[in-house]
């Protein structure tokens, strides 16, 4: 659905060049929810804005749905953009228009006749569960309601691709949950592909099939969520399941065990106990159902002096668990 090759974008602010995106390659498959995470200033927004050419990249190609956008200009580019929905962190609604008219705006831009617009707007507001607030102005809506209007507007042109820049960062946890459920439902119902930017692991957990971690304009890690988590060196696993500082447990060694996908179905604690005669203490951790897979990370303490220790660790690794000394 999206193919990005060798993307580069440098800004010159007061003579000093800042390379916001520094050689990014990215492929997002049809129907996939792809998340880009990373610290502030990593270049996430710039990357996203390069996808619909709000920012024109200095180098590289962007192809969406088989059309190379980087080769388009003016009217052709505007038309291509009409097929890509975008939602914004601060909603970006027109304050002078009601919820319904904000949604309608996207259709006006495309030249849809008034009568058709009215029908479609009603449909869209219904889709995002906001039919009863059609006549309200943005100032009269809560953050969550505003974002629903934003989502309805983004879907107005029946896009197959949705771009989302921190769509839930301005919302409280409950509202975030509701918006994420809405998005998840929409992707399944409408067969949407989503490229989203976030710094919230909650979004990755609830929504993403694949993830890239961005740092200083580059992807330092990317791939399907299940695959990344099962790699022991994965930053993603640490970010999603933070285990906190390592405590000292006298007479014990601490290990972090990562599990993802079917590996998680193994009863590994009793396996250690039964096969290797180990007492296992769980020190920290979580196992959760993510959008992409069931996964988790557990920090366990094993008796230092136990003779079966090395065998046990090898056994776990063979079974597909990620095992490493806690640090």
């Amino acid at each position, binding site marked *: 659905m999206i193919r990005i090759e060798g993307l580069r974008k440098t800004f010159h602010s007061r003579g000093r060049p800042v390379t916001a995106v520094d050689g990014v390659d990215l492929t997002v498959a049809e129907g996939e929810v792809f998340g880009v995470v990373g610290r502030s200033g990593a270049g996430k927004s710039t990357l996203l804005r390069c996808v619909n050419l*709000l920012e024109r990249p200095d180098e590289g190609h962007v192809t969406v749905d088989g059309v190379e956008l980087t080769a388009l200009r003016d009217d052709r580019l505007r*038309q291509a*953009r009409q097929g890509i929905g975008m939602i914004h962190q601060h909603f970006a609604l027109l304050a*002078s228009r009601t919820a319904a008219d904000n949604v309608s*705006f996207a259709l006006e831009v495309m030249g849809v006749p008034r009568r058709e617009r009215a029908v479609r707007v009603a449909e869209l507001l219904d889709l995002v569960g906001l039919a009863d607030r059609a006549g309200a102005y943005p100032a009269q809506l809560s953050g969550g309601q505003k974002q629903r209007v934003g989502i309805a507007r983004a879907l107005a042109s029946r896009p197959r691709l949705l771009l989302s820049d921190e769509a839930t960062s301005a919302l409280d946890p409950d509202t975030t949950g509701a918006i994420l459920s809405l998005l998840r439902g929409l992707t399944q119902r409408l067969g949407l592909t989503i490229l989203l930017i976030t710094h919230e692991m909650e979004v990755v957990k609830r929504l993403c099939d694949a993830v890239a971690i961005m740092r200083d304009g580059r992807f330092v890690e990317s791939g399907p969520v299940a695959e990344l988590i099962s790699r022991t060196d994965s930053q993603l696993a640490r970010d999603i399941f933070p285990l906190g500082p390592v405590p000292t447990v006298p007479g014990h060694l601490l290990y972090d065990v990562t599990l993802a996908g079917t590996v998680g179905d193994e009863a590994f604690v009793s396996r250690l106990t039964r096969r290797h005669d180990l007492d296992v203490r769980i020190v920290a951790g979580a196992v959760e159902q993510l959008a992409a897979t069931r996964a988790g990370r557990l920090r366990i303490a094993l008796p230092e002096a136990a003779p079966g220790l090395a065998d046990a660790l090898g056994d776990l690794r063979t079974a597909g668990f990620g095992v490493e000394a806690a640090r």
Partner: protein
Amino acid sequence: MIAPDLVDLLWQGFVETAYMVGVATLLSGAGGLLVGVLLILTDRGGLLAAPRLNGLLGLIVNIGRSLPFIILLVAISPFTRAVVGTTIGTTAAIVPLTVSAIPFYARIVEAAIREVGRDVVDAARAMGASRRQIIVKVLLREARPGLVAGLTITVVALIGYSAMAGVIGGGGLGDLALRYGYQRFEDDVMVGTVVLLIVVVQAVQMLGDRVARRLSHR
């Protein structure tokens, strides 16, 4: 009891002021809107970025803004003659009034449009809106309350400037106050004029506020 000839005088002054300010408002409203929008569009990172043109436009606007009205009035008299054929009279006064109000209103327009968030413009661009659609349906439409409030300020300023139109025989309420009140010590004319000016300004401000409030949904 107000003397009938005083009523006549005040009415005539009011009509002249209304004429000068009315026409100057229409012209400078349109002109200021155009210049203000150009200032925004040509700015660095604007929809029609042209930093040099922007700098030049800004300079011209600033020159216009820095000249005291009374000096501008005299300084542009050749231009006034070229436009309306004369440099004296009520109609002639409209030219300097307009010329001075355009940069005044242009800066207000610029500030009002700047209030419209970048993210809203980006959202419109992302939807595939054309420049024209963005200017009309996003920038101007979203800035409407500020544009109206600014126009109100401009009208009030024009009423003030128009008092100096008497210098070139433009007449109007301010001229009345100066000639009768200040120079001839006819207090009733002075007081009548001042009261009328206060009423007019108050009415303009109230009307402007009401329209701005109706347009604002913040």
